[in-house]
Structures are given as C-alpha cells and as structure tokens.
C-alpha cells in the first residue's frame, strides 16, 4: 500500500523520451467515489495533469507514462481548482457528515491498482476510504458511526 506523502515529489517520466515531466504535486480525487482521478504534475497555474488510467507504472523512484502527450492542462473544475492550489487533500480540513470538525488530513493510503483511496489519516485516526463522502475546497467529508 502506498501513501500519498510517499508519492509527493516523485518524478514523472515519459517512457518514450525518457524526459522528466515534473514532480507529482498532489492527486485529484472524486470524493463520492473515493477514487483517484488524476495526478497533478508541478505546481501553480502551469501545472499539468495525467489521468490515473494513463499511468504505465508507479515505481519506487519514478512514475512512468508512455508519452508526454498524455500529460495535459487542467480539465474540469476539480483540476482547475487543484491548479489554483485550492484543492489539495493533504492538509485539507476533515469534517464528519454530522458537522464535526476532525482536524487536517495528514495522509492517504492508496490502492493504485484499483484507483481508490484505501484510507484517510486524520491526526491519530484512520478512516476507511469508503467512508469518504465528498471532497471540495472547504473540506473532505467522512462518514462516522453514530453512538
């Protein structure tokens, strides 16, 4: 199982040209599906994105894509917000669906084979990926058991 904090900063490389395309900044997440949608490469408005399905491999030292043509500018609201730095899951506020602030997201455990969030770490607590209900610029929302 890979953690997001381990992936951040890892170099993305084109297999066809062997050119480094940039470093992974963060992930674009679909909250209700608790799924990993894309990777942000580089930071700021010049950052680019690659869809998770277009990755060839995630190795211990580099993330490989077949060709640079698979890397594109921000597409859609989520990627655009990510490019603007408004949507970074690491450090995002976590709330329960019952309106309780839990603290900041410290890390994600990732199931890259299935493209899913396995779990979310918030301080000393860990929530299953399936508990993620939504993610936006204000918060990541998780389900919690009722008393």
């Amino acid at each position, binding site marked *: 199982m890979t953690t997001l904090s381990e992936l951040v900063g890892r170099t993305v490389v084109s297999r066809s040209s062997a050119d480094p395309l940039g470093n992974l900044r963060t992930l674009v997440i679909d909250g209700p599906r608790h799924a990993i949608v894309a990777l942000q490469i580089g930071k700021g408005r010049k950052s680019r994105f690659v869809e998770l399905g277009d990755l060839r491999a995630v190795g211990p030292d580099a993330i490989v894509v077949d060709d640079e043509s698979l890397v594109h500018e921000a597409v859609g609201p989520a990627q655009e917000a990510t490019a603007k730095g408004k949507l970074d899951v690491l450090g995002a506020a976590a*709330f329960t669906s019952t*309106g309780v602030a839990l603290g900041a997201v410290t890390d994600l455990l990732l199931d890259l084979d299935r493209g899913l969030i396995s779990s979310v770490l918030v301080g*000393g607590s860990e929530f299953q990926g399936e*508990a993620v*209900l*939504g993610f936006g610029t204000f918060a990541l*929302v998780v389900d919690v*058991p009722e008393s």
Partner: protein
Amino acid sequence: MNRPGKAGPAGSAVIAGDPGKTGGKLMPRELVRATELVGLPVLSITEGEAVADIKDVLYAPERGGVLGFTLNRRRTLGGPLKEPLALASIFAIGPDAVTVAAATALDGGASKLRGGARADAQRNVLANQVLTDTGTAIGQVADIIVAIGVVAADGGEGRSGGTYDDGRVWHAGDVVGYELEPPAKGEPPRFLPLPYTLSVSGEILMVPAGVEPYIRDELSALAPAVEAFRASLGRTAETRPADATGPVAAPPTGPPSSPTGPGPTTTTGATGTTRTWPPEER
C-alpha cells in the same frame, strides 16, 4: 447511519484511531446554544464545499423547535441570502457545521419550512420573561438551547404524545431549554429545561411550576435534567395541543399567514433518530 449513497454498517467506517485523539468530538455534543450555531458554515457533504454561513436561527416556540436558518453568502462582504435553509433540507446540525446532502438543498427553502411557516414569522424570545403556571417569575431568556445531531427524517413532526415514535425525548433541531439571564450580576447563568408543551404569549413563556428543581447552572447538566423533567411530566397527564395529532400542515397555497405567526399555543417537545441517506424527499 450517516452514510451517503451506500448501505452497510456505519460502524465499519472507522477502522482505527481513538476518538479521544480528535478531542472526543466524533459524536457531537447533544445540546448547544443557538448563538453558537450562528456563523457556522453550511457544508455540502457530497461536494465538500461550504455553500453558505448561518446568519440566524429561525425559532418557533409554539412548534417546539428550529424551523431552519437564515443564511449569509460565504464570499467576502457576502450579504444575506434571500432563501432560508429549512430544517427539512438539513442532514445534520453539528457543533462545527450544518450539513446538507448537496448545494441544491438551499433551493426553495422558504417553501420547505415546517408547516408552511414563514421565515419572517419567527418569534424572538430573547429577553422574554419565563413564568411558572403558579405565577412565579423565573428569569429572562438569554439564549435558546438546541438539540443537535442527525435531523430526523420527519423534520421534527413525528411526535406522538410526549415523545417521538422512537421513544426519544427530543430530535435534532428541537429547542429543549432556555439559558436564563443570571439572577444578579456576577452570578452564573441558569439553564431551564422546557416541557413537552409550552404556553406562549406576547412576551411571556409559561412553564410548569415543577420545573424549578430541574434548573441547572451548567449547560452540560441540562440534557439529563430535560429527560428527568419531561419524565416527571409524563406522570401528570399533560395536555397536548389540539392539533398535535393531525398531519403535518401543508405549505399554504393562498396568501401567507400573519407575519406575526400563529398565536399563543402549545407545542410538543422532542430527540434525534437516524435519518437514512440519501435523505428522503419531504
């Protein structure tokens, strides 16, 4: 269960961790002052966005609870939103946010207010006098105490007799007590449990004389006092309002009622059942 979109035990959501490490706040405190809710964000669960801020609490004492909230826009210098957020559109009232399933919950809020009430027909009870039915003044209302948690699917209308069908004493969104002004400067505030039924007039809120032993000087002590007080009333054949057994009133189709709202009346008290997800259309 608080889960949008999926079935299964909510208890499976937390796989590790100690709630104490998050300040013991995994479950909301059950009772809060209404003023503590003002300024909270309205959080869209599936979008992870704060779609508005709570501007004020719409309270109808004759209905025993919160009708909803008026809202402010989130952006800098954001003014008030025209439509209120009706209780029926809320998933949960929490200590740090009021949550809705999606931003669309804000649409058409005025028409969703409980029983067709109007947002401008709410009653401001602050500074109203609380009087016992034997004629003793207890104090002036400084704040109202609201039950928080997952809002019941019936929006607080599923009461029968003194309690809800689920046997609880209150549901989220019900007002179960008042904070009273300190009797003298320098003294602590007092917290008054409310009965199932409450007589309300222009500036006077009448409660049974038997409430006085249940007044507490700390909010944290109020919840058991409310339960004990209401249990004691259950043994005294309390009268329910005449319309309390009827169906939920439909929103008015004709001209709106008086902006001052319904006249003196009584109301049934109420506590939170679990609401299914996604919330049912009400």
